[in-house]
């Protein structure tokens, strides 16, 4: 499942063209992304994670990416990283944060936000795989190091990916879409456009001060997705958008962090 070349990647994609939208901010929507056997393997892996239970969070969870899972390794491949960066015209630096996301039916809606958040990385990826956060060595949110001999680096999200998997069939009115907004003050139920949770479809966007999106909630069925971000150095984002545009994490009750 780990693609080593662009040809390997071509073999797991259906070959359908993706849609690129310029407004209200640059984003891509792709349907029927992976060939059926690859989608099926990702869905099986996702369902295994779901079977592990929801933990302590009511109605939803965001869980660390199960990197050792053979199907999920595709998302952590250097080839996939490069493909997403090229699709958005934003080359990545080989650092990726990824996770799996689940919302129970009727989960609370979110709010328009831009994902321009920072994160700390240590270590390097390989020729075939990207570097991912290593929580046992470095606190992803604060940068605190828990081990010696590592050099940390602060990065900021540059491209976001949301891939829908293991969802029941979706029809208009079922809710659970990801809304796309012109500003942070738009009501969550009044998006400029909405991407429904249709299996094997995906949205990508360039994280900028204006990439306002949010979970619209009102979902009749569970909503499941794989989420992933490419990162670039903080200085690059500060040069491009201004350092004040970076949305810092705030310490939240229970040793968590929120943007």
């Amino acid at each position, binding site marked *: 499942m780990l693609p080593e070349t662009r040809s390997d990647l*071509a073999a797991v994609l259906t070959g359908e063209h*993706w*849609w*690129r939208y310029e407004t209200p901010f640059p984003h*891509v929507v792709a349907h029927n992304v992976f060939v059926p056997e690859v989608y099926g393997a990702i869905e099986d892996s996702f369902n295994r994670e779901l079977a592990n239970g929801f933990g302590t969070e009511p109605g939803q969870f965001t869980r660390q990416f199960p990197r050792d899972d053979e199907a999920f390794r595709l998302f952590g491949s250097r080839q996939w990283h490069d493909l997403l960066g090229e699709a958005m*015209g934003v080359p990545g630096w080989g650092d990726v944060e990824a996770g799996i996301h689940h919302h129970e039916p009727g989960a609370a809606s979110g709010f328009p936000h831009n994902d321009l958040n920072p994160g700390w990385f240590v270590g390097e990826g390989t020729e075939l795989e990207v570097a991912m956060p290593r929580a046992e060595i470095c606190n992803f949110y604060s940068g605190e190091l828990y081990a010696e001999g590592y050099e940390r680096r602060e990065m900021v999200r540059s491209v976001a990916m949301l891939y829908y998997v293991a969802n029941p069939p979706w029809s208009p009115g079922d809710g659970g879409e990801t809304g796309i907004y012109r500003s942070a003050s738009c009501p969550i139920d009044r998006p400029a*456009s909405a991407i429904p949770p249709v299996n094997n479809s995906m949205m990508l966007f360039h994280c900028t001060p204006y990439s306002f999106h949010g979970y619209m909630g009102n979902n009749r069925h569970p909503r499941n997705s794989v989420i992933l971000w490419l990162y670039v150095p903080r200085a690059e984002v500060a040069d491009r958008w201004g350092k004040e545009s970076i949305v810092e994490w705030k310490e939240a009750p229970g040793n968590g962090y929120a943007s």
Partner: protein
Amino acid sequence: MGKGEHRRMERSPRKRVCLLTGAGGAFGSAFCQQLASDYDIVAVHRGAPPQVPTQDQSRIDPLDPRKPLVVNTHRVFAVQADLEDDREIDRVVELALARYERIDLLVNAAVSYSFGPLLGSRRLLDSLEQQFRVNSILPVKMAVTVAERFWQVHDQDNLSENRNVVNLSSTASFTVRADTGGAGYSTSKVALNYLSRFMAQEFKRVGVRVNALAPAAFPTAEVPMRAVLDGVRQLDSGAMTGRILVLDGQGPQLR
């Protein structure tokens, strides 16, 4: 070669400019998908835009996103508007003229429908005004606005360019069947048929033809989408005015 002939020769390679309402619907999307190589289309949509390349959206090859794709060659000009607001009609026509400097064909395909009984429920009754506003009156407002802003001062060009209006009606306008619950939809299309005929009479003086296209429910095996699109092409390229082209699966018939 006379001056007029020279102008016609210059214009012949140009695509005709079509102002299309209801572009986000099934017919509108199919029109944009299949006829964008023949027309420069101003695609007016209220909700989601048609799934075709536009000024704001295009297809990419994920394996080579910078590669120009043939499918992006004929982009439509998509305009989001709620045409129940008269100011939006003005804005849409102004944008179309600003973009292409002319309108050769107006296709009124925006539609509102609600089905149900007249007795025992207020649902149909509550929707009646909107159905008449969108299905009957809006096409007239669109055509009059285009006439006021462009056609009235280009009457000679209108004739030479065979400019015209196609109003999307329905065979539901020819029958009274209470069991369909379509009292609002059917009668709004009856009104559209007659308004089209009145418009045809009045628009003769500015050299613009007006016709209606009345397909049965589509797309079906009897009335495929292609037949409805061909119906628009037939009315656009013909010389008829004040007629209704019926597509009921028995072959196109002009009424």
